[in-house]
């Protein structure tokens, strides 16, 4: 049985903000199925009482002195932006028209 359907892959692509093509959906559905079936092996391990590890370095609450240090100028920070205006990142329309009106 397949671990993942073509429809589920389409849903994942939407969640991932990837405007994939129909042809890609066909390819990815098969490939993701192979990968997910393989990685599902982690389920074989009896680990109910094992704590999870998110990170190998046990550092918590790393703080620094609250001092002013040099940083990027607005021009530098905006230098790679696809679009900028008045020292700000310019973005495409965020609100739907009926909401905006």
């Amino acid at each position, binding site marked *: 049985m397949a671990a*993942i359907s073509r429809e*589920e*892959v389409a849903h*994942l*692509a*939407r*969640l*991932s*903000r*990837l*405007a*994939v*093509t129909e042809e*890609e959906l066909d*390819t*990815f559905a098969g*490939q*993701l199925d*192979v*990968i*997910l079936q*393989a*990685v*599902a*092996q*982690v*389920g*074989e*391990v009896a*680990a109910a009482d*094992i*704590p*999870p*590890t*998110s*990170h*190998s*370095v046990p*550092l918590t609450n*790393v703080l*620094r002195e609250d001092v002013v240090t040099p940083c*990027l100028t607005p021009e*530098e*920070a905006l*230098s*790679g*932006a*696809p*679009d900028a205006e008045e020292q700000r*990142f310019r*973005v*495409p*329309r*965020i609100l*739907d028209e009926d909401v905006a009106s």
Partner: protein
Amino acid sequence: MSNDLTRLTAAELAGLVSKGEASAVEVTQAHLDRITAVDDRVHAFLHVDTAGALAAARAVDERRAAGEKLGPLAGVPVAVKDVLTTKGVPTTVGSKILEGWRPPYDSTIVQRLRDAGTVMLGKTNMDEFAMGSSTEYSAYGTTHNPWDLSRIPGGSGGGSAAALAAYEAPLAIGSDTGGSIRQPGAVTGTVGAKPTYGGTSRYGLVAFSSSLDTPGPCARTVLDAALLHEAIGGHDPRDSTSIPAPVPDVVAAAKLGATGDLTGVKLGVVREFAGEGAEPGVTAAFRDAVDTLTKLGAEIVEVSCPHFKYALPAYYLIAPSECSSNLARFDGVRFGLRVGDDGNRSLEEVMSLTREAGFGPEVKRRIMIGTYALSSGYYDAYYGQAQKVRTLITRDFTAAFEQVDALISPTTPFVAFPIGARTSDPYQMYLADLFTIPTNLYGGPGISVPCGLSEGLPVGLQIMAPTMADDRMYRVAAALESAVGTFTPPAL
């Protein structure tokens, strides 16, 4: 010592420059000329910074002329994987989504390379976002292995490893999330070291999997790798996961190992790796290396790490999960590509079109796998379970290091494979990292050092050490190198 400056080690080159027997400009120009001569066939570099390199070299020569004492790597050229930001110099991460981007700041690693007086030649090719084992997933074409141009140079850092093997650079920087320094080192007959996680700064390293990503040194000799490790390593307040402790004395360890005496060193062979599908030629070269290490005085025992067989599946849940989150920053707003912004489309539509156009297939696969593993309903069975397996793998390492000083294995199950042989089945590509991934999940250091040839292609020995005991692996690697020598590919 060879008359050809490109054939010398970094240590030898630094010696010539500091004594005034060669200028940093001469050394740099020799490597730039070599790049011009061979890189159209190797394609190790995505960007060569000729003007920047020569300016840096001139600065070293001027400092020497002014009587300044130069550091141990001053005037030595270095190639930098395109995953690290370089101020004003293009940084693509092998992806179309960052094509043309010139970062406004230097990564800490690159800043330390400049402080050490090294000369950055340019940026090397890599699998897109460091996801891959062959450089075939680069958006800018595959790098070719100098040992056989029809074969892959490993990945993701295949450009850095190929630049070394092709004598285009004596030193290179890589980054290792699941083996991306060690596996390219193994298949190109060069040395690649993954430091302890947190031992090298991630500031300015374009993130793939933040709990695993580790920048580190690549070189043609163990001593050169140690010198580079020392130059780039150590605490960085700009990386909150950076370990606030001194760099282990890897240079002294490499020099100690070079005496060829491993008396009193106990090494463990991981039992579970024995039946794990390494090619016969790789297994034979590994057995020879074990014999050599024994002759050098090391005691070899077998150890059991029962959860290592789950490292690959755990990794391919944890790394994609972190990647799906990290790569959300590529939204077409602050840097890089923007596609489909016609004034009518919404932010979300533009974002989806931009990411569709800018990311390659492997990056899309991993983002979707990660999104799946983190989604409600699947989280416990996939990502949560993988994190528990990570704990068990760490316990395996801890138990093993109570018995032995370091663990050894082949670096990778197979030698350099032909270009195109593994791209149709993504999971077949993942198997290249079978032996390197456990170390990343644990966070300890690992090194690959050439140990022999199989059908004319290099095989690497991997040495894995406890966290912050990076010096141990350098000692063992240098001892092996003193016995088996270095490996030179056929002339290009």
